[in-house]
C-alpha cells in the first residue's frame, strides 16, 4: 500500500488516512470474533479494509453535503458500515443461492423483531458490527429505518432474480434492462442512504436525491469492474447486459457528475464526492480491461 506523499491528490490523502482508521476500528473486532479472516483469508481481509476505507471517503462527502462535520465518531461509524457491507455482500454473493436466501431471511427477522442467529464466526462478526452501528445512531429514526428496509428489499429482489432467470429471459429486452437498472440503482442508492443515515441525524430532502444518485452511479461502476466475474457466475447486471457497456457507463457517469455539480451546493463534500466517483470510474475501467485481457483476476484488491 503506497504511502500518501505531498504530491498525492486530496482524495488519495483521505484514502491513506482512512485506511489507518479502518484497521484501528475493525481489526480488533476481527481478531475477537473471526480471527480466521485475518489469519487465513488475507485477500478477503484486505478487501474488507479497502471497502471500508472507500465507504469512509464516501461517508465524508455525504456528511458534509448534509451539513455536518466529519468528526472521529462519524469516521468510526463509516468504518463499521464498510465492514458490515463487505460481510453482507459476501453472504449474498459468495456462498451460493441457498446461503444468500437464508441470510436475507435472517436479516429480515433481525429487522422485524430484533433476533439474529449467528451460526458462524463470520456471522457473529457481522452481528457485532451491526449491533455497534445500531448503538451509534437512533435506529428508529424514520428515514434511517426506511432506508435499511428499502436496501433489504433491493437485495431480496436481486437474489430472487438470480433464481428466476428463465422467466426473466422471456420478458422483453427493454423490460429486462429497466428492471436490472432499477435493482442496481436501489441496491447502492439505498446503501449510501443507510450510510448517511447512520452518520447524520437528518438528511435534507434537497440533497437526498443527489446522494441516492451518487449511490446508483457507484453500483454501475462497480458492476462494470466485475463484468466478467459476474458473467462467470451467471449473475446478470445492467452493466453486463447492455450492448456497449463502457460507452453506457461513460454516459451514466458523465451525466451523473454533471447533475451532482449543478444540484449540490458548492463545498468540500461535493468536491470529495465528485473526485471519488472520478477515481472509482477510472480504476474500474482499468480493472475491466485488465480482467478482459486476463492480466488480472477478479479477486485482486483494487483501490
Amino acid at each position: 500500500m503506497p504511502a500518501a506523499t505531498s504530491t498525492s491528490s486530496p482524495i488519495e490523502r483521505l484514502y491513506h488516512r482512512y485506511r489507518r482508521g479502518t484497521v484501528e476500528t475493525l481489526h480488533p473486532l476481527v481478531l475477537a470474533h473471526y480471527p480466521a479472516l485475518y489469519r487465513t483469508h488475507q485477500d478477503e481481509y484486505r478487501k474488507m479494509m479497502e471497502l471500508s476505507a472507500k465507504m469512509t471517503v464516501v461517508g465524508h462527502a455525504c456528511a458534509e453535503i448534509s451539513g455536518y462535520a466529519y468528526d472521529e465518531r462519524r469516521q468510526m461509524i463509516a468504518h463499521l458500515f464498510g465492514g458490515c457491507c463487505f460481510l453482507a455482500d459476501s453472504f449474498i454473493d459468495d456462498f451460493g443461492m441457498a446461503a444468500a436466501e437464508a441470510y436475507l431471511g435472517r436479516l429480515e427477522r433481525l429487522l422485524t423483531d430484533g433476533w439474529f442467529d449467528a451460526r458462524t464466526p463470520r456471522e457473529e462478526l457481522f452481528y457485532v458490527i451491526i449491533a455497534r452501528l445500531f448503538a451509534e445512531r437512533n435506529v428508529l429514526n424514520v428515514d434511517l429505518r426506511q432506508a435499511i428496509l428499502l436496501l433489504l428489499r433491493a437485495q431480496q429482489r436481486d437474489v430472487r432474480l438470480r433464481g428466476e432467470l428463465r422467466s426473466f429471459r422471456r420478458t422483453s429486452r427493454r423490460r429486462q434492462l429497466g428492471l436490472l437498472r432499477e435493482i442496481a440503482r436501489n441496491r447502492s442508492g439505498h446503501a449510501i442512504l443507510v450510510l448517511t443515515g447512520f452518520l447524520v441525524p437528518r438528511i435534507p430532502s434537497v440533497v437526498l436525491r443527489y446522494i441516492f444518485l451518487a449511490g446508483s452511479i457507484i453500483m454501475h461502476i462497480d458492476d462494470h469492474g466485475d463484468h466478467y466475474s459476474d458473467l462467470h457466475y451467471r449473475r446478470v447486471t445492467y452493466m453486463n447486459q447492455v450492448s456497449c457497456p463502457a460507452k453506457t457507463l461513460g454516459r451514466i457517469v458523465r451525466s451523473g457528475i454533471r447533475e451532482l455539480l449543478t444540484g449540490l451546493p458548492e463545498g468540500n463534500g461535493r468536491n470529495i464526492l465528485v473526485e471519488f466517483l472520478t477515481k472509482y470510474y477510472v480504476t474500474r475501467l482499468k480493472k475491466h480491461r485488465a480482467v478482459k485481457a486476463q492480466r488480472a483476476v477478479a479477486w485482486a484488491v483494487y483501490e
Partner: protein
Amino acid sequence: MAIAIQRSRVQGRLNGDQPLIRIDAQREAAQAPFQFDPVRGRLHRRDCHAIPSDARSALFGRWTMDAHDVLLACPFCRPVPQGTRPEGERIESVEFLYGVASILGQFGTLLRERGKEFRNSDEGRQLEQQVDRFYAQLDAQQRHVVDLVLTSLDQLVTAVQECDRHLQTANGTGEGSQSDMNGKGARSGGQTAKPPVSRPRRSSRQAKTGAQVNGRRQARKRS
C-alpha cells in the same frame, strides 16, 4: 451484550416470540401523508398518480414538509405542509412507560441475575457504599423523595410481573404447550403471551453454533 442477549434466546432463557426491537416501519411509511421519490427528488401526496412506476420501489414515507420541501413538491398533486408529526418521532410519556415495562417484562430474569452478580462484585460493593454515603447526607425531605421514587419503581416491577402472569394465564402458556396458546400452534407477531422464560425454545438443529456456512464458495467480487 448484544451477543449475550441473542445467545440467551437460543438457550431458551429469553422469549424469542416477543420482538426485541422492530426496525421495519414499511406499513407505517406506506400510510404517511407524503411520499418522497429519491430518484427524481419529488415530494408527492400519498395517492398521487404522477409517482413514476420505477420510483415506487424507492419511496420514503414522509409525515411533514418543511420550507425546502415546498420547492420539491409535485406539480400535479401539489402537497402542502401539515402539522402531523411522524409516528416514529411522536413523544408520549406513556410510550416510554410501556417501553420500560416491556424491557422489565422481557429481560426481568436476566436483569435480576446481573443485578445480583454486580452487587456481589467489588464494583457493586463500592457503588453500594457510595449510595449509602449519599443517602446519609440527605435531609429528611430529600430521603422521602428518594424513598418515593424507589417505592414507585418497586410497584412498577410488581405491576409488570402481575400483568405478565395474568397474560400467561389468560393465554394458557403457564401450563399448556405452545400449540395450546391460540389453538393453532402459531402466533402472528407474537405480541401477546410468552412461555416460561426457562423453557428451551430452540430445536437442536437450530441451536447448533459454529458450523461453517454451507454452499459453494464463489470467488468474491466486491472490492
